[in-house]
């Protein structure tokens, strides 16, 4: 598909436009925000600052340790985004490799890889992630690893199916008949044709990764030295912000997660419509 045409369809799609707008806004907050506000989670406020409602000094109030909630959210946006994106990269690399290899090689290789994928597909993801995170220890890199290593099975399945149908195309046969190597065919013919699907899938997987990170951190597996939105929610819940009716403490981080994940799903849906023309007709 031509690139300009691709962009045009994407921008003309209302969902895609809204999603892209929210996503760019969060990217800006995550890149520029922490430079401006300079938030240090280890610096606590005075006793008078504890759980104060929103005011001019603290636009979103303060938390149970007297820290500014807005600053925590701005700093957290970077953590949530980085973890979500890096974990997705791991998932996509594993999922794409397994999917293409399995679909292209076929036979026993396919059989073994698909059984492995089945296992990862049925492993209860949240308990598995929690157990892994607990065993490895709470650090941002472990969280990225855990989410990445558990989230690739669905992608592998989709990529395999697409590879199977690409493999049967005539041009692949022609390429092979003039002596192209398997690696060449995979890299120059299969991969570019599977790529649009992978790209649309990446966006949806990122949404899941961000949700996973939030949940893991909320359940106390987060890196407290680099608090994400989930970590903030963890402390809000543990410190009893709910019974103290400190709405400014537990509402905004959750809303941010909601908006960011929503932006990815909207973009994913828009892309899906482009990649699957069948959907557009309906």
């Amino acid at each position, binding site marked *: 598909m031509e690139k300009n045409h691709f962009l045009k369809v994407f921008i003309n799609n209302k969902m895609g436009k809204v999603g892209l707008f929210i996503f760019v806004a969060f990217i800006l907050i995550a890149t520029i925000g922490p430079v401006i506000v300079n938030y240090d989670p280890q610096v606590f406020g005075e006793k008078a600052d504890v759980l104060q409602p929103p005011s001019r000094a603290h636009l979103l109030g303060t938390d149970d340790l007297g820290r500014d909630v807005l600053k925590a959210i701005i700093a957290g946006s970077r953590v949530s985004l980085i973890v979500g994106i890096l974990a997705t990269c791991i998932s996509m690399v594993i999922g794409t490799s397994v999917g293409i290899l399995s679909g292209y090689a076929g036979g026993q290789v396919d059989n073994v890889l698909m059984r492995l994928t089945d*296992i990862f597909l*049925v*492993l*209860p993801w*949240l*308990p598995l992630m929690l*157990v892994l995170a607990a065993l490895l220890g709470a650090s941002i890199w472990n969280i990225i690893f855990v989410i990445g290593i558990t989230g690739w099975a669905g992608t592998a399945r989709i990529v395999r199916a697409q590879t199977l149908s690409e493999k049967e195309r005539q041009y692949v046969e022609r390429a092979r008949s003039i002596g192209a190597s398997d690696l060449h065919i995979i890299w120059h013919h299969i991969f570019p044709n599977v790529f649009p699907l992978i790209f649309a899938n990446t966006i949806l997987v990122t949404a899941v990764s961000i949700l996973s990170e939030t949940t893991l951190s*909320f359940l106390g597996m987060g890196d407290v030295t680099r608090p994400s939105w989930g970590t903030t929610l963890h402390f809000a819940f543990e410190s009893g912000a*709910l019974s103290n009716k400190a709405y400014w403490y*537990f509402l905004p981080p959750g809303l941010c997660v909601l908006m960011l994940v929503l932006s990815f799903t909207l973009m994913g849906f828009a892309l899906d419509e482009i990649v699957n023309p069948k959907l557009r007709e309906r």
Partner: protein
Amino acid sequence: MSRKYLIKKFAYVLITLFGVLVINFFLFRVMPGDPVSMLVRNPNANVETVEKVRMQYGLDQSMFDQFFKYIANLAKGDFGTSFHYNRSVNAVIGERVFATVLLVGTAEIVAIFVGVLLGIIAAHKRGSRVDVFALSFSLVTYAMPSFWLGIILIALFSGLFGILPTSGMTSPALYFATGIQKAADVAAHLVLPALTLALVLIGEYMLVMRSALIEVLTEDYITTARAKGFDEKTILKNHALPNAMIPMVTLVAMSLGFVITGALQVETVFSWPGLGRLMYDALQSRDYPLLQGIFYISSISVIGANFISDILYGYLDPRVKE
């Protein structure tokens, strides 16, 4: 559905089960922080104590022997002794099963009913207000962490209106109350956690029902039925729905397998004494045998549910022959 299909699916189940067993075994033994190193962090622990603990957990044997002993124990249904409760893992888990089944069961029934109904209306009247509402609803509930949805509901119904209990399954004050009073008390405690879980599921079910029905409604045989002059209601009820329900049935069967995953967040927020909360507590106290037991059970339930959903699919959809 042929016998070959059944046998093949069953073989896959066994392979998957074995894979899960292997992962479960190595996860808890090879990773840093195995039971013994956790237990003997105490600097006063002498060599003999460490050896004793190692022997107690069979860690002095070879990895191979350990693995076979582990499989043998699992076959007997023995998960060992919980560090924290100092009772058999079986007993601890057994006490919590009912609460989770009650919570998830209630949520599933509500979600299936509402989700299917909403999905049908949305697909039937595409682009209508109901459709747009239903779509936005499922998009938003999907994007929300379910624990946060629970927090919001607590803030709304107990913080703002102050009408529903938000923690646990029973009120301690009702210890001497009659059976009916106790049941009503449990029901009141059940409302918010079940609602949280149901809201998340409704979005998912509605979306699948909607797209399945839309897909079916574009098929040629529906056009034929229309051409024959059947009214819309008959077409929907007798022609479209039976086929559109197939993916729903398998989805529900599969989602039942993720009982513990789904309940974990909600049970944690609402202190609901089920398996999910038990797992959270086991994580906090690093209770490895218990953790392993729950992890094992939750894997088994997913594998079982997948198998059932495969069978159902083969049974309901005659096109699956292989």
